[in-house]
Each structure stands twice: as C-alpha cells, then as structure tokens.
C-alpha cells in the first residue's frame, strides 16, 4: 500500500506526572485511509490519539517528548498554532459530548468561531453537514431543540456533523461506537467508510471485529509501546510479534469489548 503520510509520529514519549504512558512511538498515519489503533485497556491508545491534536495538553502534569508532524509541520514545536491544528482534526469521543445548546447551534458553533456569520450560509452548511453525518432526516423538524434530547446514537452523529463542519482533514475517533447500540454503531461505521474518500481517519477501538471491518492500516499498542503496525489485512492475518498474535487471537484477559452483535 503506497500512500502519502498525513501524520508522522517520531519517537513520541508521553508521561503523566512521571508515569510513562507512551514510549518511543514512531508511526506514520497514511492519508485518506482508516487507521485502527488497537490494544488492551490502559495501553495508551487515547494518549496517542489526543497527542495528534494536542488535547493531551489539558491533562495535568503531562510531559511530551519527540515530534509529531502533521502535513510536514511540527505540531509539538513551541508556539505551534493549536487552534488551527485542532480545526484540522475532528474528534469523536467514546461518549458523545454535545454542547449545551440546540441541535442547529451545535453544528453552527464551529462554523461561527471560525468566522462564518452569514445566516443563510450557516443554515446551508448546517444542513449539509447534518446530511453528511446521516442525521438530517431525523432532526430537520426540530433543529431548535436541545441537543441533549437526542438519543445517544443520534448525539454521536451530531458530534460527527459538528466535527465535520469545521472542515477538518483528519477524523479522530476514540472508541466512537462503544457507547452505542449495535444499529447506531453500524451507522457510524458506514459513515466512516464513506468519509475515508476525503478524510484521514484514525480510529481507536476495543472491538477487533470493527478494526477488521474498517481498517486499511492497523497499529497494536501494548503497555505504552507500539508493538507492531502495518496494513490491516497483513497484521491481522500474519502478526509478526507474539504479543500481537496473542491479542488478536483473544488470548489477552483485557481483550474484552468484543461486540455482542
């Protein structure tokens, strides 16, 4: 698989208050593909994902070493423009976190803070991104209702629309389907498969079957270490490291979260 690299991680180490969470991770995330990050609980998947948009900076006592290049720009350099970086990356959380405002305003928020104030264009764009997230038909009649009134599955698609609205290049998902029912989860997966035409997608998942279904590229993290990475088909069929082999064959105690569908 020859693909352009979108995010390049070089010797990344992260500590929380002296406790190491990632050790010397070097990894290239291919452009316009779905990359799955898998590994047992607490191995550092979220930490890696949140390093990409420097959301990790919000944690207390965090220290970072190494470099991350996004579009060949070092985002770990002092003085890096974090709001611009974060605008480039949409993030979906494990549990959808809607903003305390209406459905419409949730999507319009990002547009507004990045300078779109024209009412007409706002309306058009909100509709466009709600359609893209596959939510438009369900909410077109109640755009003014509080977003918190939506079901969890709908909220997650709203978060997707909200993230897409700031026109990112990368979509980061931290177990974005784990709080959803199987049907909602499937709808989100469907979206991802459609979106990878235009976006680079990085997906943290506990669900190996999901990783198999979606991923073009896969990385296995274990105890803060990047054990193995490569084209997904290859990694799942012929893991090189015994730890990867053990994990994907389900011989890890921690490897719960296999989806019940």
């Amino acid at each position, binding site marked *: 698989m020859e693909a352009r690299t979108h995010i390049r991680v070089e010797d990344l180490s992260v500590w929380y208050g002296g406790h190491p969470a990632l050790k010397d991770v070097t990894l290239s995330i291919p452009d316009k593909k779905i990359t799955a990050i898998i590994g047992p609980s607490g191995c550092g998947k979220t930490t890696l994902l949140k390093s990409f948009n420097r959301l990790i900076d919000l944690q207390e006592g965090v220290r970072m070493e190494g470099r991350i290049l996004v579009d060949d720009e070092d985002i770990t350099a002092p003085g890096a423009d974090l709001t611009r970086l974060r605008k480039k990356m949409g*993030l979906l*959380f494990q549990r959808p*976190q809607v*903003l305390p405002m209406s459905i419409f305003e949730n999507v319009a928020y990002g547009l507004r803070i990045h300078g779109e104030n024209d009412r007409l264009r706002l309306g058009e764009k909100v509709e466009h991104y709600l359609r893209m997230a596959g939510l438009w038909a369900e909410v077109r009649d109640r755009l003014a209702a509080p977003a918190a009134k939506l079901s969890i599955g709908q909220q997650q698609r709203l978060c997707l629309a909200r*993230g897409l609205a700031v026109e990112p290049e990368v979509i980061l998902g931290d177990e974005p389907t784990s709080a959803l029912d199987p049907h909602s989860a499937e709808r989100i997966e469907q979206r991802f498969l459609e979106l990878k035409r235009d976006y680079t997608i990085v997906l943290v998942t506990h669900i190996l079957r999901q990783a198999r279904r979606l991923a073009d590229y896969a990385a296995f993290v274990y105890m803060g270490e990047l054990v193995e990475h490569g084209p997904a088909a290859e990694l799942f069929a012929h893991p090189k490291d015994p730890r990867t082999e053990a994990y994907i064959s389900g011989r890890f105690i921690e490897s719960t979260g296999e989806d019940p569908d």
Partner: protein
Amino acid sequence: MTQARFIEEKIFRGLMLAAAGMVAGSLGLILATVFVKGFRALSFDMLFKTPQGGYYIGGGGGIANAIAGSLVLGLGATLLALLVSLPLVFYLNVYLRRRSRLAFFIRFSLDVLWGIPSIVYGAFGFTVMVTLGLKASLLAGTLTVGLLIIPIMARSMDEVFKMVPPELHEAAYALGSTRWEAAMKVILRQAFPGLAAAVLIAFGRGIGDAASVLFTASFTDALPTSLFRPVATLPLAIFFQLGTPFPEVQERGYAAALVLTLIVLAVSVLARALTRRVTRHSR
C-alpha cells in the same frame, strides 16, 4: 446473625426516618408558626406604609421601610458579590490548573470566610467605618453583607463549575476554540442555571442576616433614599417588634417574619428549579 442484621437494619432505618422527619417537621413547624402568628397582622398598610408615630407601641403604619430596605440592600450586596465571584470562579476553573497552589489557597480562604459568623462581619464592618469616620448607612450595610455572601456565592459557583464534565472542555477545544471562546460560549452556557442558583442562594442568605447589618446599616423608619443614610432591614424589623411587650406589635413582628420567609422561600424554590435544569443537562 440474620436476626441481628435485621434488627440493625431496622434501627438504622428508624434513625434515618427520624432525622428526615425532624427536618421536614421543623420546616413545617416554622412555616406554620410564622404563618399562624403573623397572617392576621398582614395587611395593605403593613406592606406598603412606613411606620407612623408610635408604631412600636401599637400605632399605625407598616414595614414598607424594612421591605424596601432589605430588597435594596440584598440586591446591592448580591450584585457586589457577583462582580467578585464570577471572575474569581472563572479564574479558578478555566485559567488556573486544577491542582495549583494558588487555587487551593483561594478555595481554602473562601471556606474559612464562609465559616465566620455574620456578627464578626458586622463588627469588622463597624471597625472599618469607625476608622474611616463613616456612619452606619445603606452603603456600609451593602458592603458588609456583600463580603458576607461572597464566599457563599463563589464556593457554590465553584461547585457548579466542577460539575461541568471535563469532556465538555475537551469537546470545545477539539473544535478549535480559544480559551475565551470555550469559557464564554460553552462552559458558561452549561453552568448558567447553576450559577443563577448560586446567586439566588447568596441573595437569600444576605437578605435574612441580622447581625451583619445591626451596626453597619442601623435602622430607620424612612424608606431608603440615599446610600449614605441608615437603612431599615426585615431581620431587624422583626427583632425590634418582637422585643416590645405589646402583643399587637409582636404580631406585626411575625408578619414581618412571614414576609421575609416568603421572599427567601420564593428565592429557594427558584434556585431549586434552576439546579434541576443544570443536572438535566449533564447526564
């Protein structure tokens, strides 16, 4: 053993019921007392007229001076406390790191201030007035009560901010918000009902306090017209009227207590309703 556990359970249940009953009972009893004793004296004159000559020995008039005074002083003090509390709480929760030493020190100071009895605030206000050569006035009373309710307001707001899930901060930043945008457009919105409740709670506490205004605001039969004149307040109106030996004046004291209780009750009900809204927002 099973028997013992059963009895244990029964005793504990009994204790809990008794405690709950005592709380509900004393609330009911207080309301009933104030209502029964004060209701008859409650009249148009009581609410809308100032004390006439000989009011405190049974003459005509009402407690409009104290109602107006308490509302003006309470609102002023609340506004003052809000001007201090809101920036302070934003600073603590959005700008300072959560485990910072300064944040710890500020919260600790607020807790200590909260615990200081209001008479001490009154005495402190009085001392400052004497040093500055000021007389008891609406201004001095407002400042003192403002000081009294700052810790109440700020700490309640602080708790509201702590209830905002960290993921909401993250969601706001992940969309490329600046700190200011995250604070003003997302966090404030989420916290707003809770903050309003904190303001109301502080107002209720301020308007009902007697000891802090005793020396600083003094008392007058006139309606409040100037920041630099003494002002009447409901708690002191109650105190003075109950202190007379005349049953009809005492009855008016209860009527004043009823008015004050109703104001505070209305404010707490409103605060409750707002708090329910905030909890409904955060799953």
